[in-house]
């Protein structure tokens, strides 16, 4: 059984770490891993030293785990290696396909909007607006995932 005080310490640590990492699915996964590691370590230490204070045990685990800053730094290093190993050709192809797909979707959507409004919304105007939204969405997503 894990008491509330321990849970609070763990949550505080996870929150502090999450603030230093990009907001994406990979980070959520990493934070789940860290949380699971802490509870696993806590269980292990409690079995060995059952009379020890839970606070002390959890602090010991957090010390072994490293500071949120150290974890974020390692995460950043791994991401840099990741980006460096990506092939430029693949990246170019990926962006081209994404751009063409966004354009096709914008044209179809603009045609639908223009037809439904019986020409009140001009087709070319709708294409430009929708492409604008696609570009904004692209930037927002790139910022969220830390993509360059």
């Amino acid at each position, binding site marked *: 059984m*894990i008491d509330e005080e321990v849970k609070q310490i763990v949550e505080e640590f996870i929150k502090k*770490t999450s603030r230093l990492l990009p907001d994406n699915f*990979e980070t959520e*996964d*990493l934070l*789940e*891993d*860290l*949380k*699971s*590691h*802490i*509870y*696993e*370590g*806590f*269980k*292990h230490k409690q079995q060995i030293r059952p009379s020890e204070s839970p606070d002390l045990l959890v602090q010991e685990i957090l010390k*072994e*785990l*490293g*500071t949120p800053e*150290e*974890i974020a*730094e*390692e*995460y950043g*290093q*791994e991401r840099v*290696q*990741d980006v460096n190993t990506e092939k430029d050709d693949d990246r170019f192809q990926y962006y081209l396909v994404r751009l063409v797909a966004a354009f096709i979707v914008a044209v179809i959507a603009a045609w639908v909007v223009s037809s439904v409004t019986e020409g009140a919304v001009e087709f070319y105007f709708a294409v430009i607006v929708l492409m604008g939204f696609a570009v904004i969405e692209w930037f927002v997503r790139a910022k969220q995932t830390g993509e360059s």
Partner: protein
Amino acid sequence: MQKGPNFEDTWRIEIRRGLLQYAVLAIVKRHEEGIHGYGIAKELEERTDGLLQVKEGTLYPILHRLRKERLLNVHTEKSESGPSKKVYVLTGEGDRVYRHLTVLVGDIFEKLEGLKSD
């Protein structure tokens, strides 16, 4: 003037980073049924006499990278002590890479031994 880390410390950090990925593959390889992150961290500390010991939290970005490279696979197990835990296993590709790296590491140390002056 602020003094940065000395040459040996920087070199140790760099070489450890590369070897750590290999060591993680080696530990996971030893556990065909799979091993969780906490187990990897403990084994890394015990089996390398602390030489490759790391702050345990910094192991997870490495595990994520190895998963991304498809060298490790993961499945989740329910845990009584908290959130479900991930169990890491070596993929077929991971096994191939591990065997290749083992030969490479052996070769490198053999050649380095030969470089040492008598």
